[in-house]
């Protein structure tokens, strides 16, 4: 069975993956940079950017090796062209172009957000019996850089239903964690300490919950946590207090994400809801969304964790779907677009404002 090689370098992660044309993931390699970054209390893009160059070839080789595949087993190379950090994107694109030229393989340009939106079409490697995403569905993509709701009617046919007007949900998690002095990565720390906390301890604001649209705002939550911490005085936070603040802030974020996703599913009359992006790893969000979907009699598809955070399996997956439709990108037209918007024609230079 021929395979697609996927390459992803849009921001912090260098990743490569081999996916069969049928959708079986043969390998999914992410050069996780958390150990390097953790020392600095945050992700350090220059290290990431330098690491993309340093780690891209070993990561690609590892993806092929662990898939027990040689170059002749590949049908095409799929690569993320945006949105993201321009210098980081270019590393992946230049690598893909060079490999495609050397091994005479066609190229397929992929939108990073589109890859997140469709990642749940891959079956869960640990639970193959679980349902996969089948259009039409509503997808909630929540990560450090994105928070948006989409309607998916088919590959290439998406409608943006709503998006954040300020901070992404993952950013809200990270910054709240930072204010409390929790370790990096903040989203993971909040998820962990929240289990001991009372989610109703502090009534933090639910941004845009009352608004009729499906947009989000998490900037107010950040300010509310800051004011809360300033008002309580400068004595050290006890672990119970940290757990309560974390659980309450998490609940404020989860409430809005769940409620707006359910509203979207109702409004769009779809039978399936898909949760994707790095924030989809949050246990409370998974649990609450699953429960609400059950009440609404809508099927919930939780994207497998390894395809939630930035990865290349989702890129290879989208690549194979375009491959099956005979859609490729010419090497001359393949370029990086920092501001790429979902639904933009692939490989064609789109100048947007912005």
């Amino acid at each position, binding site marked *: 069975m021929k395979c697609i090689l996927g390459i992803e370098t849009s921001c912090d992660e260098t990743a490569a993956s081999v996916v069969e044309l049928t959708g079986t993931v043969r390998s999914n390699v992410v050069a996780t940079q958390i150990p390097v970054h953790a020392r600095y209390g945050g992700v350090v893009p*220059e290290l990431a950017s330098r690491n993309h160059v340093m780690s891209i070839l070993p990561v690609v080789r590892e993806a092929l090796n662990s898939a027990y595949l040689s170059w002749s087993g590949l049908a095409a190379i799929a690569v993320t062209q945006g949105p993201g950090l321009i210098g980081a994107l270019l590393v992946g694109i230049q690598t893909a172009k060079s490999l495609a030229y050397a091994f005479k393989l066609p190229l397929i340009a992929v939108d990073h957000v589109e890859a997140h939106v469709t990642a749940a079409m891959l079956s869960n490697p640990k639970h193959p019996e679980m349902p996969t995403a089948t259009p039409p569905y509503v997808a909630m993509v929540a990560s450090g850089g994105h928070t948006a709701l989409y309607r998916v009617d088919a590959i290439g046919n998406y409608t943006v239903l709503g998006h954040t007007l300020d*901070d992404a949900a993952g950013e809200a998690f990270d910054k709240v964690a930072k204010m409390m002095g929790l370790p990096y990565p903040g989203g993971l720390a909040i998820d962990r300490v929240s289990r001991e906390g009372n989610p109703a301890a502090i009534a933090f604001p639910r941004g845009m919950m009352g608004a009729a649209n499906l947009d989000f705002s998490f900037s107010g939550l950040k300010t509310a946590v800051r004011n809360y911490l300033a008002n309580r005085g400068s004595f050290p936070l006890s672990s119970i207090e940290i757990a309560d603040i974390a659980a309450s802030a998490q609940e404020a974020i989860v409430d809005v994400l769940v409620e707006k996703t359910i509203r979207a599913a109702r409004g769009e009359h779809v039978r399936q809801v898909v949760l994707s992006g790095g924030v989809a790893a949050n246990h409370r969000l998974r649990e609450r969304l699953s429960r609400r979907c059950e009440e609404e009699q809508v099927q919930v598809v939780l994207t497998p964790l390894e395809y939630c955070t930035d990865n290349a399996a989702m890129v290879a997956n989208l690549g194979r779907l375009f491959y099956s439709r005979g859609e490729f990108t010419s090497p001359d037209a393949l370029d990086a677009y920092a501001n790429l918007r979902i639904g933009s024609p692939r490989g064609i230079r789109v100048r947007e404002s912005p």
Partner: protein
Amino acid sequence: MTQPESNQMEKPQLSSFTNTAFLATLVSRSAPETEKIAGELAASLPANCVVALIGDLGAGKTCFARGIIRAKGVPGHIPITSPTFVIVNAYDTENPVFHFDWYRISDSLELDAIGYRDFLEQGGICIVEWPQNAPDAIPKETLFVHIHGLGESRTIDFYTTLPEPALTEIRSVLTQIVSRLLDVTDINQHTPP
């Protein structure tokens, strides 16, 4: 691999700028008001300049940036979101506007790697949040905006290293904003003894 000791090296400070002229201090009573103040100020900014926004998490830096970016012609349907994760958002207005966030940056070498100097050379307005993370990458001619305060209202201090005539232009616009804010304060909050 990285050398941990490089992290302990003494970092350049923003306060090392000489010839910094104090412009004004004003008080904003809400986030929408902060955005409005930034919008009014935008017209007085020179075509090419850096606006450095200093303040804690949740102080309202992105809010202030949004006011400038909207005033430079980015329509309401295009969201102006936090650049924390992507480091920079570019807006294709008549005169380009770049919205940087150096929250995840630890020194100017990293900025070189993401092409910050290329952005600067393109001209236009570069708005920078968390400039203190790489002070040596802040050019000599910059408008510094320091936002502080808790609750709803914010105190905003303005300083600049910009030369004339920009200095006088910005000062005069700030004076107008201050007097407008004082007028409103008089009507709404002044109670006779």
